[in-house]
């Protein structure tokens, strides 16, 4: 109550509203305006955050005028954790004192971004009491971004959010928050249980998130199929992408219905001819012929004809390692290191979890400071990486075999024998 009274007093003699002539221009037009939202908070005179949001708007307008940002980092956190809060102190706090501390709490949302309205309202109530009233749904990290909190209120806000079942996400050199696609919850393309995968990996490795001590950041992302709706291939150190190993399913009645509706030429031009591996052919009776050994599970034909075509029954995931953005050696796509891991039984899931743990251990033990997994992979080479992880080499890991002759191959025959032994064992396993 003491806080509320103090706030009321402050708001009575609060400084005059900052003029925002540039920001005002972002209130017109058909798209909903975040500036209008910021002003609603500023104008909630009975709320503790009104003065903060007035000064925040003042600083933002100052940025629009000067074309410069005015935030700097620092050290702010919550008891027991070493990350999850993004500290922001204003460099122009003398002009805009009420928003001189404007920290963000990164909070992990339910996997797949599912909410009940009741839960969203609880979140709003907590942030209204302790923060700025401004929430980003969601940040590029995959977190709910509670933006704008004084140093003093960070612990209070966290405690209240933590009590309703939310936990801080990652920041700094550690495991980062993850995202998973809608997947099993509402998508027929989904090839594994994304919620289970997401929660299994992140919650098993939570210590690496809450007390960051890795060489640099490490991100997992989970997409249920090759459409990769979480953009995992380019945006995560470990992309888990759903796939299937047996034949895709074809409902020929639905194929015919599609051709009848879309037209034969359209079907040939936009389904058959767009298959990247020429795995499709339209028969004279308008049924579809699929060469499943040529198919690479790219998802195009399934996207065009979702009623007629579906993933096969033997489902699981691929792992692609090393995706990242520009810093420092340039953007990288993840590379295939496990073409298929079945994800059906509890035993499969135990293997999946063990692989994630081993991957983090490998990164912790071998990466240099501020080196991402993809950079480490480039430095040590894929063969050394596979050996560390105990993974077998597979032709699905390359676009084509090496073209440079500058390699020592005196143990080639031994390696070839290992390959043949693996093939033999796989054939025996498959027969059982």
């Amino acid at each position, binding site marked *: 109550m003491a806080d509320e009274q103090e706030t009321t007093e402050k708001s009575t003699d609060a400084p005059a509203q900052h003029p925002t002539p540039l920001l005002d221009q972002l209130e017109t037009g058909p798209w*909903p305006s975040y500036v209008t939202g910021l002003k609603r908070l500023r104008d909630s005179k009975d709320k503790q955050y009104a003065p903060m949001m007035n000064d925040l708007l003042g600083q933002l307008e100052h940025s*629009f005028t000067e074309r*410069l940002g005015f935030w700097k980092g620092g050290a702010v956190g919550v008891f027991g954790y070493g990350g999850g809060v993004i500290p922001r102190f204003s460099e122009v706090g003398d002009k805009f004192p009420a928003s001189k501390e404007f920290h963000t709490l990164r909070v992990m949302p339910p996997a797949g971004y599912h909410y009940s309205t*009741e839960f969203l309202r609880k979140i709003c109530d907590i942030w209204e009491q302790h923060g700025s009233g401004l929430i980003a749904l969601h940040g590029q990290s995959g977190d709910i971004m509670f933006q704008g909190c004084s140093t003093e209120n960070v612990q209070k806000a966290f405690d209240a959010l933590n009590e309703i079942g939310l936990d801080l996400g990652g920041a700094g050199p550690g495991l980062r928050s993850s995202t998973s696609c809608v997947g099993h919850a509402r998508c027929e393309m989904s090839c594994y249980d994304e919620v289970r995968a997401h929660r299994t990996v992140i919650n098993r490795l939570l210590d690496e998130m809450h007390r960051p001590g890795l060489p640099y950041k490490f991100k997992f992302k989970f997409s249920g199929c*090759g459409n990769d709706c979480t953009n995992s291939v380019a945006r995560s150190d470990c992309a888990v992408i759903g796939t299937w190993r047996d034949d895709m399913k074809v409902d020929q009645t639905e194929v015919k219905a599609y051709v009848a509706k879309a037209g034969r030429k359209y079907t040939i031009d936009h389904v058959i001819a767009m298959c990247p591996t020429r795995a499709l052919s339209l028969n004279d009776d308008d049924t579809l012929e699929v060469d499943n050994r040529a198919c690479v599970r790219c998802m195009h034909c399934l996207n065009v004809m979702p009623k007629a075509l579906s993933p096969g029954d033997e489902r699981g995931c691929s792992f692609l390692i090393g995706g990242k953005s520009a*810093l420092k050696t340039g953007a990288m796509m993840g590379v295939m290191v496990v073409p298929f891991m079945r994800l059906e039984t509890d035993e499969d899931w135990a293997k999946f979890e063990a692989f994630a743990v081993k991957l983090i251990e490998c990164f912790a033990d071998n990466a240099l400071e501020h080196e991402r997994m993809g950079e480490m992979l480039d430095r040590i080479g894929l063969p050394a990486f596979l050996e560390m992880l105990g993974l077998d080499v597979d032709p699905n890991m390359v676009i084509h075999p090496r073209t440079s002759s500058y390699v020592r191959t005196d143990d080639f025959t031994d390696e070839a024998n290992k390959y043949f032994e693996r093939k033999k064992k796989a054939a025996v396993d498959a027969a059982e």
Partner: protein
Amino acid sequence: MTSTSGPRPPIESGVPNSFLYMHPMLKKNYGQWDWHDHPRPGVLHHVAKNGDEVWTVRAGTPRQMDVYAIRKLCDIGDNYAEGHVRFTSRSNIEYMVSSASKVEPLIKALTDAGYPVGGTGHCVTMLAHTQGWLHCDIPGTDASGVVKSMMDMLHDEFIREEMPSRVHITTSCCQINCSGQGDIAINVQYTKPPRINHDLVSKICERPTVVARCPVAAIRPAMVNGKPSLEVDEKKCMCCGACYPPCPPMQINGKDCTRIAVWVGGKNSNARSRPAFHKLVVANLPNNPPRWPEVAEVVRTIVNAYKADAKDWERMGEWIERIGWPRFFEMTGFAFTKHHLETWTGARRTLNMSARAHF
């Protein structure tokens, strides 16, 4: 909460259990969906193997939302939908309903409240965006302002499904590119080496860390005015700004040195072509708040050319690969310069190692 005097220990609960919040129909049919179609732009219709049906209405949000906006979206969810929502990775909100009759009233409620319904299928969906001047400590430009300006311009393309394929636009406020790869990417490009405040470097920065951070080894330790500091070889420096986060006295931002570049042809999906990085089209556009009109014009030009010429399902990069870069630059009217030639690691793989040419 505990009433003891010490600090409250956190409950390390991790990623919350989605099934506590998921729409009951999605929970019931988890992993059992059969097919879907698009009854109209902004609406998805999913059918489960047991015949259960669910309709999803998708609407755009500004991402950066005040509690009043979120509560308004919740009110709509309670009054016109079934009390459960989800968000897409591009900050669109989705309402699930178990009856087709609820779709039109829900669309009307959202539209009346100012939330455009769309963002599905072959449209220009919401831009992926970052923090910008609102909250980042290293921003070259704003994020939400750029997004608002672009989405105002592209609103009609959001609420319709008239594009050849989906168009994902991204914006990033610095060259680190937090928003990732896009069919069109709008990113800050710095144009000048950092300006160094030599009085502060040794007080604030761990110099070896800063030296190690430079991608082109252009930074070295130096004594300046009798103080330990750092110097930059400006011939080597390509103005990426990587030294600024570990050493804020090496200021990379500024009115006269942040420009905007537009890139095309990035994609994450495996459908048809492999995932691909976006490629440079235009650089040196003015960083011009509050509406960035020069950038908007470039984006409009690219969207229009793509819309007019690409085949159904061809993403931006796939369309350009088919017609060839010479025709892309002709059709859009942008200049092809020496700066379009890759000079980074792996550059040779981006050059034309053949006698094939488009005329």
